[in-house]
């Protein structure tokens, strides 16, 4: 089984996202960077599939040169190879992104291509599906459990409080959600190995068109209107009368 995992480098914001003055980007000066949580689970799932069936795990990202940090993290977790579709670091829209990804991998014959259900920052819900159509593969999204058996993948996703089950043949594109597994932390030897590994660098060609971002806007700040009911258990009677007022106590 040769598996591809597509990941994206994103800042990890704290309690508030701060915008640059021209509203063209978020200020990341004091922020760390991470991989979208769904995609971290995709790396973990790929490694587990490889551990069971053999093969290789390749991670790919489209981004600036600094995105190699996230590729190395994935290799430290256990991915074998990495591809960087190197850009000047500016964001590409989903059509350009998926086009670059499918161009880069179409000759590589991966059996399984794993994505996150949605990127943490962009949330376009589409790159995986576009890549699937470009490669002429079947695809499933929002998946929280997978099982592979004789060239078939059985996948479950949450629906109506339970799960709905799909079955498609390999090769396939599947986008995963956090919760499918608990990703491992890279071991120290894993980190050492990852440092020495080569990253294949490709310069992708950007398609024009798609969605053009004009500017970012912070959602309206809610003014604080909190009523502090008190400290400790003394405040419980007050809370109870509020719960009653709101109609949650039936008697």
């Amino acid at each position, binding site marked *: 089984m040769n598996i591809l995992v597509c990941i994206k480098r994103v800042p990890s*914001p*704290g*309690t508030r*996202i701060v915008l640059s003055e021209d509203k063209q980007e978020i200020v990341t000066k004091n922020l760390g960077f991470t991989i*979208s*949580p769904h995609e971290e689970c995709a790396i973990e799932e790929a490694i587990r599939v490889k551990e069971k069936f053999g093969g290789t795990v390749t991670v790919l990202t489209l981004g600036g040169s600094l995105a190699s940090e996230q590729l190395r993290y994935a290799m430290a977790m256990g991915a074998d190879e990495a591809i960087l579709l190197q850009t000047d670091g500016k964001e590409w829209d989903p059509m350009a992104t998926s086009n670059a990804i499918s161009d880069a991998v179409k000759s590589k014959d991966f059996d399984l291509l794993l994505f996150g259900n*949605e990127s*943490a*920052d962009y*949330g*376009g*819900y*589409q790159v995986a*599906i*576009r890549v*699937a159509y470009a490669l002429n593969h079947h695809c499933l*999204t*929002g998946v929280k459990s997978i099982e592979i058996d004789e060239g078939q993948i059985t996948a479950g996703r949450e*629906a*109506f*409080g*339970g*799960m*709905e*089950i*799909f*079955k498609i*043949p390999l090769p396939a594109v599947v986008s995963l959600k*956090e*919760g499918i597994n608990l990703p491992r932390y890279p071991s120290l030897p894993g980190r050492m190995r990852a440092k020495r590994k080569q990253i294949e660098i490709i310069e992708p060609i950007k398609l024009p*068109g*798609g969605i053009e*971002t*004009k*500017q*970012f*806007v*912070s*959602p309206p700040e*809610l003014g*604080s209107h*909190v*009523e*502090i*009911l*008190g*400290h*400790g*258990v003394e*405040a*419980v*009677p007050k*809370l*109870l009368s*509020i*719960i009653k007022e*709101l109609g*949650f*106590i*039936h008697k």
Partner: protein
Amino acid sequence: MILAIIEHNQGTLNHQSLEILSLAKSIDRVEVAIVGENGRSICNGLGKYGVEVAHLLLHNELVDYAPAAWAKSIIQLAHSIKPDVILAIGSERGNEILAHIAAQLNLPMAANCTKIQIKENNCLVTRIRWGGSLLEEAVLKSATYLLTIAQHLYTVKGELEESAVKISEWNVDLEDQDFVGKVVDNLAPEEGKVILTDAHVVVGGGRGVGSKEGFHSLDELAELLGGAVGCSRVVTNHGWRPHADQVGQTGARVAPDLYIACGISGAIQHWVGCKSSKKIIVINTDAEAPIVSKADYAIIGDLHKIIPAINKALKQAND
């Protein structure tokens, strides 16, 4: 004209998909698309939401959900009726179907819009980023604008006089290939469990709960109020609760009447999952925690003492 996709599962309406109608009607004339014979039963009930024309897309195999086939059916309809916009709710299925349509037509798609403005030869949208903690203004140029609308933003207005809906039937042309990715089985939810996203009350627990066992009192509180337990990502990362309980950007978006956040600091990625709650009560040792100032009510103190006291008082009130 706007073509709005109304979601249903085997004839059960996804009420939330009606949220797109009020926005759509404020922009242009609206017609709706419903996929499959078993969606026929919901068509008539749509009159009170102001729907006049429902296009019913028919094929023998259009029974179980199959995103590629659903998308292709809607594309065939669109070829005939030529809508300017195809719109769906930003649900799991809504975003999925629209992305399949976008990929099949090779057109841009904007997910989770909060506002739409159709201009002469482009479309201006405001859409959510970072699960809702940031907004983006963007422009699309396209023959047909493919958009989904963020959930929990617009209310469903069903106050109109019940009127007849004109059903126009379309037999669509599909192949076996289109049905490969279809639902083949459904696992029912656990018996008697209140579903997190449907619950009227959600008791959320965070790192402050401290352990798996620490959730006993939260479970009890949820049960007393007829609600469900939710949690933060720290909790699922520790394995204290299953991920299905996680509220936030990479978990569930909940919109209960009451959210009780216990030992949760209120990082934006958690906040976007619970901010649509009608009332929020916080229990936190730290009066400066970000979630406190965003709440309606707060008790400052140790949840391990406060929640058992609430449970005790609730049981007395119920007796």
